[in-house]
């Protein structure tokens, strides 16, 4: 993959800043984050609850409602800023160019309408030239693509009749009906059993390759990241603390938070005698961030500078950056500037 080719970039998020005005104060959910997703690439957005990963993805499709406030930044889709679009303009992109699947499939379907009617509705809403029969045919084809063996029968069923795994597949099929260029997946398998999760990920991988579709995959599970993502952005307390290719993150991770987060994933192959490592304390409270690094209160390597100033973004290798004072020392030493 040609990393330097700028024409490839499909989604370019620049300095996105979102906060919530709550009665207890301003909750700064997303702090000037930037990342880019190229055509056909899968970008993983990883972090704990409250890291801002979901809020940042909702803002892409204009799904945020008050008390959310977008303070600044741009979201460029194919070069065009889609952040300030009216609901009507955003609706034209939603489903057609950029589609989204969510964690809880049951809440995305209307229980009083059949699956079929909801799928054909989606096709007809986005393609004014299609007839009802065409919409139904396309829906059935799409259901087959997500390994539904009896799509005709499924079209007549209601959402409450289906298991979580099946609904999630239907949701994927619905999201892909209009062949979007970008699919945003917000923890789609978190609520599912592990064997169903494995099958769903297999389906997503297959479809992603087949349609050369870009994906923004939000998860807290590094195992899934390893399996499906090309690039990764690690978020903590509303900041991106590390960003790089999947290989960079797994084999040369630079930020202590990334390393600890990965270590905490229970693995099947480590000796049983080793204790499960964990991070002391709680994920940062987004209403009470201090002047320093967002991770400093929980970082085992934090020093005075970490608590006093926000670390700069340091480039470790082409496409691999980390925001950490530990790494800043090396970089500034190389560039000749005095290290802190």
């Amino acid at each position, binding site marked *: 993959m040609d990393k330097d080719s700028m024409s490839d970039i499909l989604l370019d998020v620049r300095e996105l800043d979102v906060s919530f005005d709550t009665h207890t104060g301003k909750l700064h959910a997303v702090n000037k984050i930037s990342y880019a997703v190229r055509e056909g690439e899968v970008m993983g957005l990883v972090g*704990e609850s409250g890291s801002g990963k979901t809020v940042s993805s909702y803002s892409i499709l204009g799904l945020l409602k008050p008390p959310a406030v977008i303070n600044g930044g741009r979201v460029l889709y194919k070069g065009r800023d889609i952040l300030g679009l009216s609901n009507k303009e955003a609706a034209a992109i939603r489903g057609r160019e950029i589609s989204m699947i969510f964690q809880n499939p049951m809440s995305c379907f209307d229980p009083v309408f059949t699956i079929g009617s909801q799928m054909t509705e989606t096709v007809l809403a986005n393609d004014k030239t299609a007839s009802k029969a065409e919409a139904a045919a396309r829906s059935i084809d799409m259901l087959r693509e997500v390994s539904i063996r009896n799509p005709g029968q499924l079209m007549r069923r209601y959402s409450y009749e289906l298991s979580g795994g099946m609904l999630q597949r239907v949701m994927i099929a619905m999201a892909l009906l209009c062949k979007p260029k970008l699919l945003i997946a917000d923890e789609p398998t978190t609520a599912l059993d*592990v*064997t169903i999760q*494995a099958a769903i990920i*297999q389906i997503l991988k297959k479809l992603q390759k087949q349609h050369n579709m870009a994906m923004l995959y939000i998860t807290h*599970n590094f*195992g899934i990241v390893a399996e499906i993502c090309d690039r990764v952005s690690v978020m903590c307390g509303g900041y991106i603390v590390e960003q790089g290719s999947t290989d960079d993150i797994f084999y040369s991770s630079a930020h202590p938070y990334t390393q600890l987060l990965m270590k905490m994933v229970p693995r*099947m192959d480590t000796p049983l005698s080793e204790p499960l490592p964990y*991070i002391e304390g*709680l994920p940062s409270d987004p209403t009470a961030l201090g002047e320093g690094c967002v991770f400093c209160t929980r970082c085992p390597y934090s020093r005075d500078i970490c608590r006093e100033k926000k670390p700069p973004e340091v480039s470790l290798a082409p496409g691999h950056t980390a925001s950490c004072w530990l790494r800043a020392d090396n970089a500034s030493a190389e560039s000749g500037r005095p290290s802190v």
Partner: protein
Amino acid sequence: MNAGDLLVVENLKKSYKVRDKTGRRMLIKAVDGVSLAVLRGETLGLVGESGCGKSTFGRTILRLTEPDSGRIIYDGADITRADMRPYRRRMQIVFQDPYGSLDPRSRVYNIVEEGLRANFPKYSADRLREIVMELLESVGLEASHAYRYPHEFSGGQQQRIGIARAIAVEPEFIVCDEPVSALDVSYQAQIISLLKRLQDTLSLTYLFISHDLSVVRYISDRIGVMYLGKLIELGTSEEVTLYPAHQYTKALLHAVPAADPRAGRAKVYKLTDDIEDLSIPEKGCRYCRLCEKAAPVCFEEEPILREVAPGHSCACHIL
């Protein structure tokens, strides 16, 4: 029954009569003849996916729901139909939903103290307060947390409150019903470590129920695997996770995503969309329709649990 067994369960059955959404009456055999023993001081992990009956099993042995048939023997006494009051202190539970299991109108102090006051009526108010504060500290909370309400805490902290409540009455045996499934990955590790530490300091025996095999592996001495109401494999953690005998156990193990980009996933996962496929077949092995190695006998006869290695048993025809 051996001397070391704290809990022995014999052929436990529990079914629910339900009506499905179209009004049809159905019998859900949640637990369909499960027998196992939990040794004093050990952690027995019970693993399986949604609908396998593991949570029902955990609740039934505590008589939170009544069994249809079978026997439950706790510390040598048959408690299947006994008055549970003398046992409630000794057998406790930590629930899956941290917030849902705490009374939102009670302060943390009262939630933890309630069981203490009921079981140790002779304790003075001062002594009770002392114990509650010690308990909160032992689960990683602070004295200042005692006078707050559950909604003021994160999921991980709420679970700690639930654990403090469970250990308050000095139990011997705790059923941990998916205690970390609703928590963020960073909290999961914290809570598991806490549970392990408490087990050592308080000499506890755990039945640890979870759908997450990688988590269960860390805390369990032995692991039992359930599928559609039956125990299909039982052995030490090492045996079951390194040398799984049942095809379903193998599928569960392979399904855990490895945190290594270069590890490809060799197995192709079969998915089924027929609801009927997920129900218990009329005859034969429950797993036969999804099993890679199913042979004709698997569709005819239900396999029984038998020993395949010392301390390792499995219910499968193809071994």
